[in-house]
């Protein structure tokens, strides 16, 4: 390596292939140059920079003092909070924290939720990451997980049954979100295959179903679940509200899922179908062995995005009276001790959703990048 101070010999003084590496001329690299390029490249950019810096400064200082510096963590009521300091009263979150996580789930049984939650990550590992140790064997556990989780959460098999009306908070959000996604995936696949099918009736039925569900808001479907669905069941049959909501959420998610998977199916080259045909595979064999494994892989980022959407949409259940994490925190505003602390409560919920959704969207980005580069393996 030579330095910039070296005299540069006249051209032709080197044999081909023996030119030394020279440092770039001064002023083209380094922090100053970076700032010139990225902050002050034009008058407009300079103005933009100054405005942005001002906004960031104001927000950080004012929010910072409210959020952190002047905040109160432990107190018994809002008045007690205000007596201590002028910032946010996080005491409301602290006192309601367990409620916001477990809902009304009995104290003695909460270990089951914790266990189910830990096992969730064990089950998700092999699904989410290719290079998970002993992936093939762990996959079996993942397949069994929904059953395990069902018994852990609802009870049965020797565990004390817990009524669904005690579900609430984060755990309800997770129950709805995860049930929605696991049930909607197979239904979504079938719908996508139906919409992609050569049989006109099948195609029409699936298309109508998908378009109907996508055409109406989730909240309308939830209202259908809460006010109409029981009318359609035989007299005497009752589904509890959570079950009805799960049905609707599953339908809703499966219509979106079907569209994502249809995208994946459409991206399959025609040759794959032909090769499967030429080998004499039946329709279902071809789909199961050849087409779906590939189509699903391409669709994973879309599936994750659908899941993020579904997960955020679980908040809507509060409108029909199920207390998810937003609902349960909102209801604490009715507690005379804490009323008027809307900002703290909403912010807490927002941060909860942000962390989980952001993590998921990062994962989806990671997958997308992996699919792009590792397409050929």
């Amino acid at each position, binding site marked *: 390596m030579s330095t910039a101070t070296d005299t540069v010999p006249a051209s032709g003084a080197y044999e081909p292939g023996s030119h030394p590496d020279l440092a770039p001329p001064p002023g083209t690299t380094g922090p100053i140059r970076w700032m010139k390029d990225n902050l002050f490249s034009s008058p407009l950019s300079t103005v933009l920079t100054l405005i942005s810096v001002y906004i960031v400064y104001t927000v950080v200082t004012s929010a910072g003092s409210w959020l952190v510096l002047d905040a109160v963590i432990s107190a018994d009521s809002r*008045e007690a909070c205000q007596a201590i300091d002028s910032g946010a009263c996080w005491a409301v979150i602290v*006192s*309601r924290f367990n*409620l916001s996580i477990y*809902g*009304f789930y009995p104290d003695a049984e909460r270990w089951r939720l914790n266990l189910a939650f830990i096992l969730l990550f064990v089950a998700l590992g092999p699904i989410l990451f290719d290079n998970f140790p002993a992936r093939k064997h762990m996959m079996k556990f993942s397949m069994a997980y929904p059953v395990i989780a069902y018994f852990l959460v609802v009870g049965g098999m020797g565990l004390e049954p817990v*009524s669904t*009306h*005690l579900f*609430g908070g984060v755990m309800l959000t997770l129950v709805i979100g995860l049930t929605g996604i696991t049930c909607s995936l197979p*239904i979504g696949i*079938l719908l996508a*295959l*139906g919409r992609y*099918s050569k049989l006109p009736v*099948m195609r029409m*039925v*699936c298309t109508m179903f998908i378009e109907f569900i996508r055409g109406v808001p989730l909240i309308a479907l939830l209202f259908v679940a*809460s*006010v109409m*669905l*029981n*009318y359609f*069941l*035989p*007299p*005497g*049959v*009752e*589904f*509890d*509200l959570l079950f009805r909501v799960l049905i609707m959420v599953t339908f809703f998610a499966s219509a979106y899922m079907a569209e994502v998977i249809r995208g994946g199916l459409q991206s399959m080259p025609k040759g794959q179908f032909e090769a499967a045909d030429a080998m004499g595979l039946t329709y279902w064999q071809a789909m199961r062995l050849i087409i779906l494994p590939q189509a699903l892989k391409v669709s994973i980022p879309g599936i994750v995005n659908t899941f993020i959407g579904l997960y955020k949409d679980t908040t809507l259940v509060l*409108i*029909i*009276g199920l*207390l998810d994490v937003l609902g349960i925190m*909102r*209801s604490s*505003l*009715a*507690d*005379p001790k804490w*009323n*008027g602390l*809307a900002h703290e409560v909403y912010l807490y919920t927002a941060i909860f959703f942000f962390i989980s959704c952001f993590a998921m969207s990062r994962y989806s980005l990671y997958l997308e990048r992996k699919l792009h580069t590792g397409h050929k393996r």
Partner: protein
Amino acid sequence: MIKTISGIAAFAAAAIVSAGVSAGTLDDVKARGELNCIVTTGLTGFAFTDENGRWDGFDASYCRGLAAAVLGSGEKVKFVPTTGKTRFTALNSGEGDALFRNTTITMSRDVDLKLTFLGVNYYDGQGFMVPNSLGVSSAKELDGASVCIQTGTTTELNLADFFRANGISYEPVAIETNEEGQTNYLAGRCDVYTTDASGLAATRATFDDPGAHTVLPEIISKEPLGPAVRQGDDQWADVVRWVLNVVVAAEELGITQANVDKLAKGTDNPSINRVLGTEGNFGELLGLDKDWAVRVIKTMGNYGENFDRNIGPSTAIALQRGLNAQWTDGGLMYSPPVR
């Protein structure tokens, strides 16, 4: 697709099988071992959850009393929180067995919505609450005001009628729950909050400075609040009706949570004996056992105790008995005799 359809069919079949034969509500509840009781999503004093997530309040006590009568324990209740909008559907669709949710008895609800009302457990009327700072002393001065009003309630209809009858205008601010109404009112989104006077008192009680707010003298409607069940199940209706009556009777007869066990061993007063099942077989006639009333009173107290404990003058809500006093004290609480 074939798989989906067969799946749906199997699912439907399973649902039918699992349903079994639907008997009366009483048998259903007994078989289930749990009472599904429809309450509000939260109204201080009437039905609300405490920090441990336990439901409490004037209406919630009735749920516990009913569960005690039918199932033997006041804990065997599943509370179904509903908004003003979803409550009747929850009842009609079978999600709840009984509705104890400060619900006004009206003819159309009784006749058109196919509910059966069983009596009044709280006589109420719709009132207005305003901040003192507005300097308003009568509801008739409210021309042009913004009024917070819970949608899907009779109060909403009364309000429209009242303003129309007085030829004044207002801006309705629709809210879903009392909690929202309270938040909006305190934030100044509306000038006036209107709901049942009891609800206003309950809400005002939770304010930092209750003295800064006035409940206006006009009571613009009769709001007899009472429980309801689905139409067409007389046995169940009887059970709920007599739970309602027996607590009023208990207060009249001086039976309290504290002395009910002692009195249940037998007294010289035949009225008390009949109520507590030491005389007669009214419990069996209802489809319950003879101790049912003892359990009700032990669980929720008599009417006066329930009132005092949850909404009475010594609580933050500080409601006077008023119309809800015993008939012997000049109120309207009057239980038909148990005999």
